């Protein structure tokens, strides 16, 4: 148990308490990433605390996609990065037009991400993938016996992609 505490220094008129490093880290990691990045300028010590890789919570990205029925040869990718706190939208032309079953306005957060490839499960019989590094967007067609069930889910665990299918009470992964 850590029971040490920084001494309270008393100067003539103003008492200045120096917070210990672990407390400063606790405070900094409650800040939005924009403020965190700005405060890297405070001092070298602050910079190191902000960049503490063990507590790196700032590089996290959400990606959505939308396909318009009329223009299914292109896809709109919207991504939100916690690193920059901004949404960016890109339009990608598709080599192979995709047929998607959900409505044109519908946007879904991805089910998971492996090596910067984001995955979604489509209401139709396909898994949608987007490679955010090479900006490629494609679909994996699932065979019929893989989609014939009541509920389906896609998830990522330990770097592998899992597809779960529920047929009545049985779950196949």
């Amino acid at each position, binding site marked *: *148990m*850590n*029971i040490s*505490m*920084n001494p*309270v220094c008393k100067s003539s008129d103003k*008492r*200045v*308490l*120096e*917070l*210990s490093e*672990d*407390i*400063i880290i*606790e*405070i*900094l990691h*409650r*800040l*939005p990433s*924009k*403020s*965190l*990045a*700005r*405060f*890297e*300028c*405070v*001092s*070298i*010590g*602050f*910079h190191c605390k902000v960049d503490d890789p063990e507590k790196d919570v700032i590089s996290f990205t959400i990606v959505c996609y939308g396909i318009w029925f009329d223009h299914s040869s292109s896809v709109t990718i919207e991504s939100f990065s916690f690193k*920059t706190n*901004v949404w960016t939208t890109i339009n990608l032309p598709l080599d192979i037009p995709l047929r998607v079953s959900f409505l044109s306005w519908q946007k879904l957060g991805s089910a998971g991400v492996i090596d910067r490839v984001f995955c979604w499960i489509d209401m139709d019989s396909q898994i949608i993938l987007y490679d955010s590094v090479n900006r490629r967007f494609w679909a994996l067609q699932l065979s019929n016996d893989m989609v014939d069930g009541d509920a389906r889910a896609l998830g990522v665990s330990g770097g592998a992609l899992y597809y779960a299918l529920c047929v009545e009470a049985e779950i196949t992964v």
Partner: protein
Amino acid sequence: MASSSSSSKTGLKKMLTLKSSDGDEFELEESIVIQCQTIKHMVEDGFSLIPLQNVDTKTLTKIIEYMKKHAEKTESNKEEIKNFNKEFVKGSFDDQFELVSAANYLHINGLMDLLCQSIADRINNKSVRAVREIFNISNDYTPDEEEKVRDEHKWAHEGGEFDESLD
């Protein structure tokens, strides 16, 4: 302010005495004090008089106020606790830093969380210069180095004025 520790038992409730760095003693029910992990471990080791050499009377009074209120926490007084917390974090940065250091030393997780979040909220829109002043940190970058770090995150320094005030 300091209460006597002459009666160590009131009814069936087990009482504990906390002693501040100024020598003042506070008698409290064990059920209130065990929110604090450091004291809980000392109680388990059989202590009933707990000297807190790193916590002065002013800070300890505030911390006891917090523990007493949070010991009353039920499903029905959530709003009251919320308002209490809001008032609790209103002090100056110096007061908040005293409290957060004590909360960290005493391992009161709820209080630690409350204070760190409130300090973070208060510095969120501050300028780099104000943050240096508030945390009493001297800038150890050379002007060139600072410029370089600033350039790396240009976007973070854009978008409006930042608050230069120190309160």
